């Protein structure tokens, strides 16, 4: 069952066309990677799906709900979460609070000003669980801004998965990490996205081939291929546009 389907999605900023006529279906439970050269529009695509930008034309459906042109918070409530390429956390709150906030809506608290969070045992326990999953339990009371880079990325991931979303969008999750940091990060990604749908933008081909069930290739805003990893490897258009040098080293 297709959990996310894009149909002839276009996005232009003024005269400049960034996303051209993209149609894509992602199945429930699939691990899907989106690759492409810089400037191909991968982040823009994420922004369109997660509600940051409106489409110029076309439709996007998530679990049979139309999500194109809806506000990010509405989309998030439907069960779609995302992380960001540039770390996007709540810097002045501590790590624990960061995660706890991400849990609030799904735990049903809405805009309550009559629940004292200190007393909400279930919520706090769940927050600690998430912290443990992402390996930050010993940093719980640190201000988020003071974490090391790799830990901030882990927190970034934690905020995205805390709410129990069914589909997670990860935008270059291991960017800027050392090799060993990236390895741990990928392990974490495997762990937390088990049983969920994952769509990931990534440049590192090793990670892509390790994680993905299917790969889509974006070049100049167009989807030039969407297939299994082996077929993508063999696809001549892809090789020409993008994989060329990598295929030689791989």
């Amino acid at each position, binding site marked *: 069952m297709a959990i996310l389907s894009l149909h002839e999605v276009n996005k232009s900023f003024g005269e400049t066309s960034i996303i051209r006529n993209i149609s894509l279906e992602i199945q429930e439970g699939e691990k899907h990677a989106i690759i492409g050269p810089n400037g191909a529009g991968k982040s823009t695509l994420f922004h369109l799906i997660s509600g940051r930008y409106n489409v110029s034309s076309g439709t996007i459906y998530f679990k049979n709900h139309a999500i194109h042109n809806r506000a*990010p918070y509405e989309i998030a409530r439907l069960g779609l979460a995302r992380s960001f390429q540039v770390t996007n956390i709540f810097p002045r709150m501590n790590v624990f609070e960061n995660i706890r906030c991400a849990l609030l809506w799904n735990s049903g608290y809405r805009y309550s000003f009559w629940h004292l969070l200190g007393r909400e045992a279930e919520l706090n326990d769940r927050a600690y669980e998430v912290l443990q999953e992402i390996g930050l339990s010993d940093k719980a009371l640190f201000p988020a801004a003071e974490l090391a880079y790799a830990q901030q990325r882990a927190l970034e991931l934690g905020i995205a998965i805390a709410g129990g979303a069914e589909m997670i969008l990860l935008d270059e999750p291991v960017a800027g990490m050392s090799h060993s940091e990236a390895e741990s990060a990928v392990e974490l990604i495997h762990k937390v996205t088990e049983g969920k749908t994952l769509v990931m933008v990534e440049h590192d081909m090793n990670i892509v081939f390790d994680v993905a069930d299917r790969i889509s290739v974006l070049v100049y805003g167009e989807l030039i291929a969407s297939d299994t990893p082996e077929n993508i490897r063999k696809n001549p258009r892809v090789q020409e546009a993008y994989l060329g040098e990598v295929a030689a080293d791989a």
Partner: protein
Amino acid sequence: MLTRLIPWIGFTAALLILPLLFDSILAISVLNQMAIAIVFALAYNMLLGQGGMLSFGHAVYFGLGGFMAVHALIMIEYETVYFSVTLIPLVGGLFGLLAAIFIGSFSTRKAGTVFAMISLGIGELIAASSLIFVDFFGGEAGVSGDRTFGPLFFGVDFAQNVEVYYLAAFWVLVATLFMYLFTQTPAGRMANAVRDNPERAEFIGYSARRVRFISFCASGLFAGIAGGLFAMNYEFLTEENLNAATSGRVLLMAYIGGLGYFIGPIVGAVVLTLMNSLLSNYTELWMLYLGIMFVLTVMFLPRGFAGFIMMHQMAWYHGKLRSLFIPYLITGLPALIAVLGVVALIELAHTQEELLHFLGIPLSPSSAISWVVVITVTAVAVNATRRSLGQLKKAWEFANEAAMGTRE
């Protein structure tokens, strides 16, 4: 659990004991002013420090609450309604809330500069309108009432200032408690999140606009309570209580006290009230000093007085706070003399009198000796301060270093 209650117990104790220690009429009046300022400043910080929304027109909710409260007093006096005046602050609060709901419905769409500008516009609009709508606002003369009517409260009719103080103290405690508890709720926490990163807050399921709206309404409620307290204390409201100067003053209080800490605005309110009431007796230039202090605080103490105190947390954890005592003295003493010297210079330059008594020292603007002495003392003190900064820096570094390996 008990340790968390200590600050509250201390706060309550202070509220109860202060009027016994300072029982002159002037002192009670100052304490009342402080109480009103504390509630107003805390309410303002719900918007700015916790919500990240800078408002230049918050006096509107304070003033509207106050005006409604005075009208309620009048209604009690003329027996149009019958309830105890102890509830007057609540009347102010409810009207402030109403105003905030109405205005917030369109002004909280965006934060940042747009919000600040709308708040400025609304503030000016309502302050100016108050001179046009004379029935509610009383025009230039304002509106006055009498708080001694209505049912007695355990035999008290609130004719005396000290009786008003205890009523105000009660409301300060209640308001502070509820404002603090708000910060521990989902709405309060999400307000912090929206302040830090409104975009991310949306991506975890919250409408930033809704969150801001709730903070805004809560802030209006408590500002209105402060207005009601003002009405009880002074029995008199004018256009001044709605205008930009009042809005500016509460911004000053919150900022100088420290936006990032719950007690910050309390500190700011106390300091500012003291400057306002005490300093103004000694010099007509106290506003100038206030302005200088404000600008210097923004430049060098951006986290306010509370922030300055909290900076010493690390040293306190390491048990090395004492080691800072002497270094502070070595820098503090000449710094204090330098400041006093500058103040003396300013006062000398300004005075119309022949003789100026500065801290008991007679100085004369026409006497060259006075000038030379003051300038020399100031210059020496400034130099000494600058020289001593090195040792203070070293002492600071020492007090803050832990076993270097434990912190990540």
